[in-house]
């Protein structure tokens, strides 16, 4: 039975007013602007855009401010906003080979054409707290070098020339969209990639790490990791041709995985792929590892029963908004449900006690009755 109850409105209003007050914090400390968050907490902004599935740095920064820095709450706000936007269409697939790279490294080829470009990385820092940042220091401009220009080709293309790496079949099929239709399993690779790119960073990282520790080990090397800006192009019906409608920063990771061959495939390298909005390197590498683990069926590999190979397990649990919604709903009032549970436990208790007393009155020892 469902029983509606009313009440608590004043308490709720006051709780929200206090939330706004706590969000502001000590009035003696300057308030954060959305622009400050966008510029100075940009990796948080990137995560909110990636998992919120909406590229708009100003909105993501606003969501972070509103959510008091709770990034999953911020992602929730962005997902809710996204549903209010009319969909103008879909872009052409972005050309990551034409990326203006801030960073581009390969763990497999030292002398990769185009070079190893570190970009603004935390790698090789000593992870020591920098107390200068607490003291408002001026930061000097970054040093500049001379760009060589020209395209920076994908490294997997070189392996491809020797035929040593599995080819990506060409296709222009319209991909399924899990924001429009419920996800159906088994999912094809396009649906898996959409699910992974918006999946929770921590969850996808944990799944990827499990493959490295031996649960469906797939020997991944980072063939290439690149971060930078790419143009987004879309066909405009009223014009009759495509134009660039903007430019986004993405992180792309291509893993090269050792593969001894299977019943259907010769020994070769296989690929995992990660592509994520923003500078989101940990997520992109994780995505590539999990993508590769989920490809076991199409590559004719054995099912090792590992969690990262289980499409249902990975895809149905990677979304932090779905997970949060279901998890947190249990804190909302369940008074009636609980009342019936309480009645049930009381009844069971009465029955057990009644049975015990009838056994005792028959003159048997309590120890025997307990059996």
């Amino acid at each position, binding site marked *: 039975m469902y029983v509606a109850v009313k009440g608590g409105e004043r308490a709720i209003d006051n709780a929200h007013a206090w939330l706004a007050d706590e969000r502001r914090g000590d009035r003696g400390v300057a308030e954060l602007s959305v622009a400050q968050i966008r510029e100075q907490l940009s990796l948080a902004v990137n995560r909110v855009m990636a998992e919120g599935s909406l590229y*708009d740095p100003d909105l993501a920064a606003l969501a972070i401010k509103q959510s008091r820095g709770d990034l999953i709450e911020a992602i929730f706000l962005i997902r809710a906003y996204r549903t209010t*936007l009319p969909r103008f269409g879909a872009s052409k697939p972005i050309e990551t080979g034409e990326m203006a790279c*801030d960073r581009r490294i390969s763990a497999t080829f030292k002398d990769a054409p185009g070079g190893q470009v570190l970009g603004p990385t935390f790698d090789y820092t000593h992870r020591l707290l920098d107390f200068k940042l607490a003291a408002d220091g001026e930061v000097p401009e970054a040093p500049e070098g001379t760009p060589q220009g020209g395209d920076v080709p994908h490294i997997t293309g070189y392996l491809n020339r020797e035929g040593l790496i599995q080819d990506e079949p060409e296709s222009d099929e319209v991909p399924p969209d899990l924001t429009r239709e419920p996800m159906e399993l088994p999912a094809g690779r396009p649906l898996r990639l959409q699910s992974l790119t918006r999946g929770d960073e921590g969850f996808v990282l944990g799944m990827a790490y499990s493959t490295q520790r031996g649960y469906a080990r797939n020997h991944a090397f980072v063939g290439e990791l690149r971060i930078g800006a790419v143009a987004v192009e879309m066909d405009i019906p009223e014009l009759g041709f495509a134009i660039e409608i903007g430019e986004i920063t993405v992180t792309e990771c291509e893993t090269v995985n050792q593969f001894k061959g299977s019943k259907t495939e010769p020994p070769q390298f296989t690929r995992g792929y990660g592509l994520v909005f923003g500078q989101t390197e940990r997520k992109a590498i994780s995505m590539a590892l999990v993508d590769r683990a989920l490809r076991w069926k199409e590559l004719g590999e054995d099912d090792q029963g590992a969690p990262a190979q289980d499409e249902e397990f990975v895809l149905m649990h990677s979304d932090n908004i779905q997970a949060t919604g279901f998890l947190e709903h249990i804190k909302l009032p369940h008074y009636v449900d609980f009342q019936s549970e309480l009645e049930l436990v009381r009844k069971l208790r009465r029955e057990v006690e009644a049975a015990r007393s009838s056994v005792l009155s028959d003159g048997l020892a309590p120890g025997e009755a307990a059996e």
Partner: protein
Amino acid sequence: MTANDERKAWMGLLAKAPATELARLWEAFGEEPGHDWLRAPEAGGVMVRGRAGATGAPFNLGEMTVTRCSLKLEGGAVGHGYVQGRDKRQARQAALVDALMQTGEAATVREAILDPLAETLETARAARAAKAAATKVDFFTMVRGED
């Protein structure tokens, strides 16, 4: 370069330009020409796609915000604005520039607005490329002890 290619180039430039920079140049350009809306500015989303392994089957990466509008100048030229983000003013100014580029004022508009915008974007791009170039690794081989 065909007429479509030229239009494609300036529309792409207007889409990617910083809204504040376009507004500054537009205001310096002068009086806003009279126009009728064919489609008033509206913000929406475009689903951005990628390809599996960069070259394979397309998949949906996530949406981006875009604002668009269409208008007609009193002289009859039709302009479309498609810009990244949610700035309706930027979309209107982009559509006005697109329309004016199809009139006798094209050369003036190019000089006053498009060329400076292209320069702004190129300067920003070159600055990032220069910072990236400074982080390029030069490998060298260590001298071995037994040599």
